[in-house]
């Protein structure tokens, strides 16, 4: 992409890297939560459900601030991570990935829950009578049947992660090459005199990425539906 300035292509590749990390981080956790919230009845389920959805209704700045309190260098989790595992989150792309993961988490859980609710329990019963135990049943029947939802959730979350602004800038600041993702680069360009052309190009990239994400998700859902004969 020769028409992009090196700093712009840097923002683009950084965004893709952050979004990929964010999806990989949240996918297994979202699957577990979707399963818990759909299939299990336990005290505090409603509270947990509300908690998962909080990022949808809170200002992103508040989420970033809470992340700072918990995962910052002196936060209870952040200091433990740094001391024991040597993972630094503040001012790093991993931190940016964490912030976007938290913000896009509800989208992913929602998509997975809807598809899990649509899985016919009768098919799982049939698998049981054929000798499949719990985990076996989940991986060979339940998960493949909810795959459209899992992938739609992942693609939506990936696209949303590319665009996350408030939580990222609050938690990991705006450091070129490390945490300056597309929307942050776009914001910085607008703050810079004569940065209009840069801003326009970055906006165009964001537009193309978002649109292709949505189209890809739709195309995939159709393909899977056809495979299942629906």
């Amino acid at each position: 992409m020769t028409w992009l300035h090196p700093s712009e292509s840097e923002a683009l590749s950084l965004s893709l890297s952050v979004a990929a990390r964010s999806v990989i981080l949240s996918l297994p956790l979202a699957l577990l939560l979707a399963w818990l919230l759909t299939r299990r009845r336990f005290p505090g389920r409603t509270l947990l459900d509300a908690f998962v959805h909080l990022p949808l209704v809170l200002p992103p700045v508040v989420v970033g601030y809470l992340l700072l309190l918990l995962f910052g260098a002196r936060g209870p989790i952040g200091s433990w991570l740094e001391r024991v595992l040597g993972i630094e989150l503040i001012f790093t792309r991993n931190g940016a990935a964490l912030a976007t993961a938290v913000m896009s988490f509800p989208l992913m859980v929602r998509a997975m829950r809807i598809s899990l609710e649509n899985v016919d329990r009768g098919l799982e019963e049939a698998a049981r009578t054929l000798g499949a135990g719990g985990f076996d049943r989940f991986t060979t029947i339940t998960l493949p049947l909810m795959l459209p939802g899992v992938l739609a959730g992942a693609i939506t979350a990936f696209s949303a992660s590319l665009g996350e602004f408030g939580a990222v800038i609050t938690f990991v600041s705006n450091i070129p090459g490390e945490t300056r993702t597309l929307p942050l680069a776009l914001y910085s360009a607008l703050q810079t005199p004569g940065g209009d052309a840069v801003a326009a190009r970055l906006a165009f990239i964001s537009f193309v990425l978002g649109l292709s994400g949505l189209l890809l998700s739709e195309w995939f859902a159709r393909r899977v539906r056809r495979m299942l004969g629906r």
Partner: protein
Amino acid sequence: MMLSVAVKKRRGSFSLDACFELPTPGVVALFGRSGCGKSTLINVIAGLLDADAGRVALNDTVLLDTERRLSLPPERRRIGYVFQDARLFPHLSVASNLKYGEARAPAHHYVTLDAVADLLDLGSLMNRRTHQLSGGERQRVAMGRALLSQPNLLLLDEPLASIDAARRDEVLPYLETLRDQLNVPMVYVSHDFDEVLRLATYVVLMESGKTIAQGGVAEMSLNKDLRLIIGADAVGAIVEGSVLGTDPSSGLMRVKVGNGELKVHAADIAPGTKLRVQLLARDLIVATRPPRNLSVRNILAGVITAVTSDDADSDLIAIDIGATLIMARVTKAATRELKLAPGLPAWALVKAVSLRSHSFAAPPAISIAPPGA
């Protein structure tokens, strides 16, 4: 004892209280009206539903015993289940569906994929997706899939109910094949008495959650509770018959029942073949002297063994025609005027006969049986 079941379960206002035993390999039909608890009962046997109290044992294995707080999960019961709606896995091909249970069965396999494909004619369906199958094909695949899990017992929950009536005859012969060529005991749930007649070797009657009677098909065909379920017009004795041969002058087939003989229109069936013959009570006329000069060709002679009241206007007359009981419906007026009573010789004039299950009791061509059966 192959299968013994005694369970209780409450579900809202419905209560299940069932008790039956299947003494031999064969097909036990759980027969009753829709909603009488048949499906609940087999779900308890399969382990898909919990019982409040009771015991289920198959051969020497106890599957459920609430007193000992023992309940094997369905995946460890080794019970094949053919669901009413087939429940094929939509994300897998027919072949993968068939192999799903096979791959999870214990090491010793008594039936192979090739044998099942052969029995159920599945060869041409193997590479299809499940949504490309017709209703009858789906049920055949579901039966094959259940069999390949190498079960010690096969449960079939109205496997023909979701198929349109015209197509049922495409599937019934396969069920007969399974019965005659496999030694796997089967529990067949149905609310269609014709299916029961064709398939069952043993019948358990159910009414409002309770098992009310059980026994062989011939015995149960004379049970008075059956009338409640199938209606007065469908009541009639089912008797074992064997083909004697074809009468050369009339072209009719001669079938021995009891000490008598029936001549019926039928396709050529080999002499010696065992048949199930249904004689509806409403199709029999009773005479107390050998009848003459009648158009009716089929007359069975015997001795009245019982006279029971059927409803306000009619009685059921049981007649022993030689180690075989048949049953006729007559009006109470006729009972009085002819002085019908046990011990009296009688002649039953048969207006109509229907034959069931041609292949019944045919010797297995290949013997396929779970260990311990």
